[in-house]
């Protein structure tokens, strides 16, 4: 804990001039030597203007997260990237984003986002990063990465070009979009992948969209979420980490704990601030503070995660706000904000 505090101090110095987003997650085990941390960066939306010109605002968000993640002490075992490294998924954008990411010291795993995918159906992303869904084991924890942003073949194939298809899917509020899903192929793969895994093994799943249904209009949603939750239902400890929503969200459904990542690019409004549609946001979530439009990094961030005994504590590194920490509460058996929930600190209202 002390060394993590040291990290925050260093980051505080770094953050004095501008703001940087980051999060860390820790999973715990009975054997403390099996505890470990990883960093979690997401949603950088690297956007090309033309040639070698990119939107500086989004570049700076990712650069800051990378710089801060490199300062982590203890050093995280690996880094996860939660998807949407690009804005419209061109090779130039993906390559530019990966170039910034290449400054990270440590192994990095990637999740596919819709902004990386719908131009060429993930071709360039896969050429650079490999499989779109996969699993790996680390210190007794089974990690699964899903591509949760695919949709029906009918929708995917109805456009005259990849550019047109991406143009529609890249608009969060574009009514011509289509619900995200994991789909039959990956669900069958997931069942097979988990078959030999013991119920007591901690499972961590990464997806870009939430594997729960929160708000259809902006695809804070995965259409086959219930089917995936059912596949994960038999395990004692399941944590799902996702990007896409550009805001703090956490929830618990049965045995599954859900945690979102902040974006390094820009924040999104909470669904309740759109007055014309209903939402199913988790009651457990204490929202992040409202973004100050005058500070370009406000309400962005990154996270680091402590994994201990199959539980996850998540630290949100926020440039212009107090950092937020979510920790598993043994007494209530759910993830809680250590300040806002446990100490009943008032949070800012969104409207």
């Amino acid at each position: 804990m002390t060394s993590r505090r040291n990290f925050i101090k260093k980051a505080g110095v770094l953050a004095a001039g501008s703001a940087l987003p980051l999060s860390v997650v820790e999973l715990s085990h009975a054997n403390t030597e099996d505890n470990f941390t990883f960093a979690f960066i997401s949603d950088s939306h690297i956007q090309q203007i033309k040639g070698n010109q990119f939107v500086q605002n989004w570049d700076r968000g990712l650069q800051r997260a990378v710089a801060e993640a490199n300062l982590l002490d203890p050093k995280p075992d690996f880094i996860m990237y939660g998807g949407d490294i690009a804005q419209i998924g061109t090779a130039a954008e993906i390559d530019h984003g990966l170039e910034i990411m290449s400054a990270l010291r440590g192994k990095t795993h990637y999740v596919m986002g819709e902004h990386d995918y719908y131009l060429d159906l993930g071709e360039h992303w896969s050429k650079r990063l490999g499989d779109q869904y996969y699993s790996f084991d680390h210190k007794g924890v089974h990690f699964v990465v899903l591509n949760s942003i695919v949709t029906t073949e009918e929708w995917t194939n109805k456009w005259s070009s990849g550019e047109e298809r991406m143009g529609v899917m890249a608009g969060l509020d574009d009514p011509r979009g289509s619900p995200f899903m994991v789909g039959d192929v990956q669900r069958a793969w997931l069942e097979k992948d988990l078959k030999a895994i013991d119920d007591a093994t901690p499972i961590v799943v990464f997806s870009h969209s939430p594997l729960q249904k929160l708000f259809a209009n902006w695809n804070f949603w995965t259409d086959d979420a219930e089917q995936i939750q059912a596949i994960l239902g038999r395990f004692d400890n399941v944590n799902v980490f996702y990007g896409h929503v550009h805001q703090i969200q956490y929830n618990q459904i049965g045995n599954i704990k859900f945690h979102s990542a902040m974006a390094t690019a820009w924040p999104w409004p909470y669904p309740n601030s759109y007055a014309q549609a209903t939402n199913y946001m988790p009651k457990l979530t204490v929202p992040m503070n409202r973004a100050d439009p005058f500070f370009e990094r406000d309400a962005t961030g990154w996270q680091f995660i402590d994994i201990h005994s199959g539980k996850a504590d998540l630290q949100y590194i926020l440039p212009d706000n107090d950092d937020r920490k979510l920790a598993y509460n043994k007494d209530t058996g759910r993830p809680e904000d250590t300040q806002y929930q446990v100490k009943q600190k008032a949070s800012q209202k969104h409207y």
Partner: protein
Amino acid sequence: MKLLTKISLVGCLLFGANVVIADEFTQETVDEAHAEFMSVVEKGRGLFVDPNLGSNGVVCAQCHPNGANTHPETYPKFQKQLGKVAPLWEMVNWCIRNPLEGMELDADDPDMAAIQAYIHYERRGVALAPGKK
């Protein structure tokens, strides 16, 4: 039945509304005004997702899907960073100048009217709260 309907209709007109109806807008007039308004709302939506509104391809809807988190019902309001009470159009220009790295619009530019029409339309039904933080 038809006769009864007619009688009750006349009853409504004469007594129910209890107002002079001669100068009431016709449905045609109401529809026409609405169609004009909606055409400007649609133009505003177009500007909200137009990569050429600014200079760097960033669009309003990237941060404000469905115009959310713009809080048009709270304007005019005091903006500490501007040091004054500002109307909505000044904040629209702030966004055009900063995240979009573009040129400000005049307050009475038809494009500015369209952007505000779209923002207000997406926020319809929410009570006015001028000055609200």
